[in-house]
């Protein structure tokens, strides 16, 4: 579904993405993990088109999209939820979602868009907040809105950046259930996460990044016991 070859991005002296190769298969749930500053969010920015790579190629559904602007990628089926929530603060929750529904695919009739919003708002449990201004939500509600808005664009591949950070265990469990349901409805998921239990429960496959590079890849148990991965985490922690 998605294939990335030799993707690199520098910020001054920092190599935030360094020759990253990555494949995402249709229908899977892929986790990207790594210590703080490993370059995970940068990778998502490159994928969603907010950053242009210095080098490398991105292919999505057989087309090269390396130079495509973000909105075109959205139309092709790339959805994204941000790590730092960015609701449109002067719009209600409903209106926030409507933006995604109206513009996520070109020429969506208003009636269709509203139906999409109704479905998604139900699915994500935001119905009671529909008429609340997004600027007045709690952080947790903002996170849910972030995910819901991405869903409204009807993505084929959904990129999630730490949407579960800050959730209590019971809430995380709910969220895990939600992501499963999303996948079962036919959406491929790439998610970034720090909570290992979530990664273990959800991911079919795990990619580990450190210093902008992919240092390991595979099923959770294999990756978790990889010495390079342990060093990346422990080395930074101490």
């Amino acid at each position, binding site marked *: 579904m998605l294939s990335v070859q030799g993707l690199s991005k520098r910020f001054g002296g920092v190599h935030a993405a360094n020759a990253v190769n990555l494949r995402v298969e249709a229908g899977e749930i892929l986790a990207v993990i790594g210590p703080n500053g490993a370059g995970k969010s940068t990778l998502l920015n490159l994928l969603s088109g907010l950053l242009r790579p210095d080098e490398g190629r991105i292919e999505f559904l057989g087309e090269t999209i390396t130079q495509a602007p973000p909105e075109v990628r959205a139309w092709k089926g790339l959805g994204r939820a941000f790590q730092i929530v960015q609701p449109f603060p002067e719009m209600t929750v409903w209106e926030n979602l409507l*933006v995604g529904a109206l513009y996520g695919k070109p020429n969506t009739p208003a009636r269709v868009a509203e139906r999409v919003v109704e479905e998604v708002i139900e699915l994500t449990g935001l119905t009671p907040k529909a008429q609340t201004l997004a600027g007045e939500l709690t952080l947790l509600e903002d996170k849910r809105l972030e995910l819901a808005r991405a869903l409204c664009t009807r993505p084929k591949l959904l990129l999630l950046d730490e949407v579960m950070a800050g959730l209590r265990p019971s809430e995380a469990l709910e969220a895990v259930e939600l992501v499963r349901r999303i996948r079962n409805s036919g959406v491929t998921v790439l998610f970034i996460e720090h909570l290992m239990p979530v990664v273990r429960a959800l991911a079919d496959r795990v990619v580990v990044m450190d210093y902008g590079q992919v240092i390991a890849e595979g099923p959770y148990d294999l990756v978790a016991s990889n010495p390079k991965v342990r060093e990346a985490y422990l080395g930074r922690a101490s």
Partner: protein
Amino acid sequence: MILVGLLLLVALVLPGLPLGEWRAFLLDTAQFAFLISALALAWDLLARTGQLSLAHGAFFGLGAYAAALTAPALGTLPALLVGGVVAGASSLFLGLATLRLHGMYFAIATLAFSEVMRTLVLKAPFTGGAIGLPVQPAFGGAFPLGGYYLAVGVLALAAGTSLLVSRSRLHYAMAATRQGEAVARVLGVPVVRVKLLAFMISAFLAGLAGGVYAMKTLFLSPYDAFGLGRAVEALVIPIFGGLYTTTGPLLGGLIIVSLETWLRLRIGEGYLVVYGVILVLTILFLPKGLVSLFRRKGVGHA
């Protein structure tokens, strides 16, 4: 919506009312107020995308000069159209150049643009330069109320466009662009197109208003038509009335221009002081404008 319709209705029948000896003055003031309110509505349309322009004096002036220069050959209505188109075309250039500028950088760049335009008009061989340009009245003066009704027409067009945009999907694209450009793009909003479209509609309307203004004053000079004063009026009125609404700039325009006219009679130069003071007071005490006094929360439509 109802208020907007009502206002336009009053504007239509105003010349038929028994206005007494003040009739000429009242109609003249009303015509000016309509044109400036139209300019303010146009400015607000662009502001909805987050672009606070100081170039609307220039769009107004370009429209005025283009209409004045082409009217003898083309006739009144086509000339006005030319004025709108010239302003719209120049805005396309400005909009493209400033796509990546935000906040104060955008404001300063648009201000610089107006000053360059003013100099160009001042120096161009066919504009009358610093001496100024005499202009024929609308329809060669055949209808005494022609200019007045043209102003009503431009105001109706501006208010109609403003309402229509508020009720269309463009409303959401503009608000999203303003409140988070990067997120908007990731959600599929074609931000570049939205910004440029807003620029062109806005400048076209400003240019139209400028053209009618030229045929009203019968004389143009770069200092008046391109003055910073126009840009200030275009910006202060919507902020005072209530940004991103139709009622706000309309109501604000009528109130402020009345105030301005009264002040002009009393003190002449320096009347712009009201704009400065109102702007400061609004930002400090009523940052959401007049309409917020009677409206609920939400971006809603007004």
